[in-house]
């Protein structure tokens, strides 16, 4: 691993340094999942791989979408599309806190000058039927990461326990780069031939998506998509474990889980459109959770889920 010295100069440099740091610590550096998700946790490299007994170590950037957080690119800190950096190691190593602090140093946080604190914050995802204990990590009073020891995912006890780190990349980068408005943040190096700011890359898309999310997305179509994803998920999981064509035992946990991800994102869009009442909300969350549980049940019966062949 190349040790990069000095303060990073751009958003992408922070990402690159994290990639390099965690690669150096033995993580498989993965790529973002190719579906719309609300958080890095939804990536099957976290949700599914935190289940079962097989050791695992992965790190990746995950573009995440939260339609209700759209502010047309005007709010200095809020975006409907943003990036999370996600690390998952199973079993959680005893020095995970030190590894994490090392990653902060790698991106230019000088531990001798800053005040880093682990403040109680237990994590729960009602849609994934998952929870864990941990902290939000503060740097000079600002939350820069979420640090969680997974206890349960998809209704299954985690054995062994995974340690999960989630960095909110924009906020963290703004702090390190000393930028007050996300759109002003240098995306690539300020001295590059064509310097680009975060706004150059994302200001327009924030506007476009905010308008679509809040006012235009066709709710009837979305409602139908939700039902379809739910039905498809069940249909996939109802298949015989033995594939009639190849004669192999193939449990389609991942394709089923894709439908769960889809349902979850459609629900978020419906929520942003304001067509889900408070009482319905709970019911929808419950339906997504039921899918997540079924997918988790299926995954633990696969080889990657620790099922002995």
């Amino acid at each position, binding site marked *: 691993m190349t040790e990069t010295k000095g303060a990073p100069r751009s958003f992408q440099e922070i990402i690159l340094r994290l990639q390099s740091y965690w690669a150096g610590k033995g993580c498989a550096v993965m790529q973002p999942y190719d579906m719309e998700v609300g958080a890095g946790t939804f990536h099957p490299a976290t949700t599914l791989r935190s289940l079962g007994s097989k050791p695992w170590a992965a790190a990746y950037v995950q573009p995440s979408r939260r339609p209700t957080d759209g502010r047309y690119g005007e709010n200095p800190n809020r975006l409907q599309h943003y990036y999370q950096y996600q690390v998952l190691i199973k*079993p959680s*190593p005893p020095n995970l806190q030190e590894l994490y602090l090392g990653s902060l140093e790698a991106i230019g946080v000088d531990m001798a*000058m*800053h005040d880093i604190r*682990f403040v*109680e914050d237990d994590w729960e995802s009602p849609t994934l039927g998952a929870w864990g204990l941990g902290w939000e990590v503060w740097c*000079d009073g600002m939350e820069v990461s979420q640090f969680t020891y997974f206890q349960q995912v998809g209704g299954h006890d985690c054995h*062994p*326990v995974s340690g999960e780190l989630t960095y909110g990349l924009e906020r963290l980068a703004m702090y390190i780069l000393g930028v007050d408005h996300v759109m002003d943040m240098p995306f690539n190096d300020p001295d590059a031939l064509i310097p680009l700011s975060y706004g150059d890359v994302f200001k327009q898309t924030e506007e476009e998506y905010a308008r679509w999310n809040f006012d235009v997305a066709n709710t009837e179509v979305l409602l139908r998509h939700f039902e379809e994803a739910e039905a498809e998920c069940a249909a996939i999981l109802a298949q015989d474990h033995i594939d009639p064509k190849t004669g192999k035992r193939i449990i389609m946990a991942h394709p089923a889980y894709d439908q769960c991800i889809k349902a979850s994102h459609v629900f978020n869009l419906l929520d942003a459109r304001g067509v889900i009442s408070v009482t319905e909300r709970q019911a929808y969350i419950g339906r997504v959770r039921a899918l997540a549980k079924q997918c988790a049940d299926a995954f633990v019966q696969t080889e990657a889920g620790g099922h002995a062949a």
Partner: protein
Amino acid sequence: MPDLLIELFSEEIPARMQARAAEDLKKRVTDGLVEAGLTYAGAHALSTPRRLTLALEGVLDHSPTVREERKGPKVGAPDKAIEGFLRGAGLTRDQLEERDTPKGAVYFATIEKAGRPAADIIAEVLEDTIRNFPWPKSMRWGAGSLRWVRPLHSILCILSAEDGAEVVALDIDGITSGNTTRGHRFMAPDEITVSSFEDYATKLKRAYVVLDPAEREAAIWQDATNQAFASGLEVVEDKGLLAEVAGLVEWPVVLLGSIDDEFLELPPEVLQTSMKEHQKFFSVKNPKTGRIEKFVTVANRETADNGATILAGNQKVLSARLADAKFFWENDLRTAKSEAGMSAWVDNLSNVTFHNKLGTQAARIDRIAALAREIAPVVGADADLAEQAARVAKADLSSEMVYEFPELQGLMGRYYAEAAGLPSAVANACEQHYSPLGPSDDVPTESVSVAVALADKMDTLTGFWAIDEKPTGSKDPFALRRAALGVIRLVLNNDVRVRLDSVIDAHLLRHEMAQNGDDPVATRLMQDMLTEIADHGVFGSAVRTVLDAFDGDLPKHIEQLKEQLPDVSRDLLSFFHDRLKVFLRDQGIRHDVIDACIAMDGNDDLTLLVKRARALEDFLKSEDGTNLLQGFKRANNILTQAEEKDGVEYSYGADKKFAEDDTEKALFDALATSEGAISSAIEAEDFAAAMGSMAALRAPVDAFFEAVQVNSDNEVVRRNRLNLLSQIRKVVGQVADLTRIEG
């Protein structure tokens, strides 16, 4: 005798759990040691975010040897019996002793349990403590199955004496005990070897760890107030925040920071809440203006720039937070001052569900407004104002500020109502109608606030009773006990005279109408019943009047309503009585005294009920009271026994002309005097006077029992005397049901 030092070193323990955990460690370990015979001279428990520490002084180095003697079978008893005895005692026959007893020679066994070294006992007790520690929430980590609040990294456990320290050997799922710990995570992370508690505390302080939470709190508070004082300001006291902040740092460094001028016009509560909830900052105010101008944050380390970078970072985070708050405040004020004013927010509440069986917030507000209007005259409030206040009191739930900071509900309502130019009684009610929230919270006294506060709580209580969601055991998700206590305190503090029965009945009906509003006939009937209750008080007669006048097929659920509502209503009233008992018990009124008063008519008028109970409590404390109670109980016992034996009720017809004894005649006279005096005192609600008249009965009752045998051979005399006793029961019974008094 050696000292024991234990430190359990882990990843960061939630601040709110540290103090309790330190105490639990102390209790579990010391209980375990004492149970095993290992006593100690002194114990104290300490905690930081990363460690729980227990220091015991003067621990025995061995548990004492215990001898137990057991008596066995007789000498010459069958072998089987003797063998059984030997097995139980764990001895062989030659170890038994023969002793002569009055019943012949008997075997005796002396079982000796040798004392055990302290280290062995400590290791067992500590392992058991760690494995069964009562954390409110615990977790597993890595591949192990041990549970702790966060991963447990090391166990320091040493017994130290003048000649040195020994490690108490312990291995819990691979974590072995030792004599080392670590200092501050960043400032002194290296391993430290310790040999005693003094050594440990000294070395930790050198390694930037203040072990004692009280010392950290004191240091933070002193430094914060000093720094504020130097700027002519003062820190807003907040004990809870202080304890929390002291639980977030091992080496507190206090930093005083500024709030940007543009945020200084925000209401102080908004500044304070935002800083406390999000950043755990103390507010620092100008004592002259009351304005919050600065903040104090507590860092966990010293830096080369004396905290300048840390403070700048914190200030930046705060500005982003306050920019949000300011944005909400300005948007909200615009709405409040607009033409539609707060009614736009109220309209919005028709889309917000309060509870899926109890409808929307808007429907709830309608009910509360109707009830506030009804209660208004009783509490001396203007009915229009009370209704108006009830209609806007929850409007701020739609505001952006309350969405962000739910704990500011009510308070923001007041600010916005003032901005909207509403009358001050209305604005105050917005804030105060949630009160009182706890047993020591201030109780509103302004009549409009009282009316809305009562209506709000009664609506909640009757609503959850109507849908049968009552508190059970420790579960009270809708805080109904608190609501009932709120009603009790509002009524008592303001001397409100209201018959809760009819409020409950009427409001249960309103809930019924809200839930079954589809049937026009039923709705009309319930509307009529409401009018009847308003005129005549109670449900039973209202139903009779309305249904008697009704011609046609009774809707089914009206039929049900007639059956069920009285039970629900009674149940809710007795819930109030239970809460009242708890409340008054804390004020020194015995539960049986309250029971004796609850048994009387008018027990739904809580003010009257408590007046009666207080008078009775005082009376029973007096000598006359104690004696009269004995006399009453004696009369009642004799009477009850006689009634049971004879199968009749002696309730009428005592006649002075059959009285034989002078004391008997005197009692007749005394009762005649008291009966009138008591009933007119009760009529006038002068319970002290009623008790006084009751006290006057003491002497004649005592004299009567002294001189007279009730169960006379002469049947006429006996019956007359029993009827006289019944007269005592009746006269005294006007005041309270003394049969319920214990002792």
